[in-house]
């Protein structure tokens, strides 16, 4: 099956440093992929390049066969790619419900209904009219998570979804991600929590210093010497 997202030779430099250095990878539709690597290896930068928050210096990014590099973030979003952020970026002065409703362009009533559904999905419906800024960390994370789902994107990029989240909430999140995959969605997540990655992802990519070090099934990656070296040094 043709990959849903294809990244070829992407380079992104900041000053003299290449944060992403000739990275190529392909995402299979309907699978959960993981992107791991030590801090500073370029994972979030890669996300930013895909979603248009940053413009890559070299290389191509194709989504469903069309080039998307150089597009603005809102265009990328409307093509069907949604993302969450490493640092939570809900809109603090909007309520949880409003956070979801600003996203879609469909009319008020269906939008509201879908927003309420999604909030119920993560059991936050009673907080719908609470300002997002007043919610707890975990609740905000959930809001950000379902916000991405408002327009039913085909590709979902999750940047450290497990960070700072307690066990119970985490399991709910992971179940939700698996449910998405079962419905045919493609997921790419950046994560530091190895248990999460190994338990959830079907394919794992490893970045180190901006370059792709390895790719493959979780078990293979775990025992790859280069990966171990990258994380723990010699």
């Amino acid at each position, binding site marked *: 099956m043709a990959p849903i997202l294809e990244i070829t030779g992407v380079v992104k430099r900041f000053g003299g440093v290449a944060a992403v250095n000739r990275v190529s990878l392909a995402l299979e539709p309907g699978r959960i992929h993981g992107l791991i690597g030590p801090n500073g290896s370029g994972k979030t930068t890669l996300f930013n390049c895909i*979603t*248009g*928050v940053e413009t890559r210096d070299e290389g191509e990014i194709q989504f469903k066969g069309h080039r998307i590099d150089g597009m*603005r*973030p*809102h265009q990328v*979003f*409307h093509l069907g790619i949604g*993302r969450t*952020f490493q640092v939570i*970026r*809900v*809109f*603090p*002065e*909007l309520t949880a419900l*409003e956070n979801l*409703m*600003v*996203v*879609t*362009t469909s009319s*008020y009533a269906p*939008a509201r209904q879908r927003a309420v559904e999604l909030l119920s999905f993560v059991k936050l419906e009673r907080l719908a009219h609470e300002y997002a800024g007043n919610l707890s960390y975990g609740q905000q994370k959930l809001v950000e998570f379902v*916000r991405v789902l408002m*327009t039913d994107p085909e590709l979902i990029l999750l940047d450290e979804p497990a960070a700072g989240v307690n066990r119970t909430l985490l399991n709910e999140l992971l179940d939700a991600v698996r449910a998405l995959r079962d419905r045919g969605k493609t997921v790419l997540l950046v994560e530091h929590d190895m248990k999460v990655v190994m338990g959830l992802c079907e394919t794992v990519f490893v970045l180190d210093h901006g370059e792709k070090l390895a790719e493959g099934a979780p078990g293979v990656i775990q025992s790859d010497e280069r990966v171990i070296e990258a994380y723990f040094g010699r």
Partner: protein
Amino acid sequence: MTRGLYAALAVVVIGLALYPMEATGYGIRFMLQLFMWIALAQSWNLISGLTGYVSFGHVAFFGMGAYTAGILIAKLGWPWLVASLAGGIMAMVLALVIGWPCLRLKGPYFAISMLGLNEVLRVAVSYYEGLTGGGNGLSLPTLYASVQIYYVMGLLALGVTALAYVIITSRFGLRLMTIREDEVAAEAMGIDTFRYKVYAFLLSAVAPGIAGGLAARDQGYIEPISVFPLITTITMIVMALFGGQGTIWGPVLGAVALFTLQELVWARFPYIHPLLFGAIIVAVVLMMPRGILGVLQQKYNLPRTI
């Protein structure tokens, strides 16, 4: 809004409508100017309060409207009402011309670019001396129309406030606010922030343009210093900030409070207005960033769309 508030508003509006019959000339001019400031502060609020893109050059639209109307009245004999509306339209055109390049810039850079706008316009006015009368100013044929202008200005103030109400209670307004809250996230969530900023900017230019035209007619005379003064922008900003930017009634409150204070208390000391306003801006930013209305909202748990 509750029934009671609607009723109160209706009473106020009717009262204001009947006011000119019993009012002195001074009273009419006072209210006329108050309406103008409400319209100006509210307009500034539409762009800066909602999107967080601070417009330091907003008086440019006022001046644009004044000169457009002034030229149409003085040189082409247009009736003042139509000329003022044309002033509003030209102000929108100016907003499009400036906004198109400048709103692509990030917030702080946009603010800087607006700082220089005043200067450019003043230069343009002196350059096109033949049309605008340059530094010597432009005189309009004499006409006493204060009462009519009072009503039109009042409608303008009402109109802009109604516009603010419609925007702030709609998803359009919510999207504008996301730009203020987190522009990167807003873009990532599919909001074309540039387009929304442009819309807000255009909408925020209309009323100042019309107000400029009306003010020109009322004064009977325009010159660059009188229609492009920095103090006008400063006053707009202080009023909106003080009352509560990003809210519906904040700018109204701020305009009423500060204009009244200005006329009744500080009028004797016009030469310290900028200092006072500067101090108020600093105080508001440090102590009540959401203005008076913000303080009330916090204290009495009022809804955001106030």
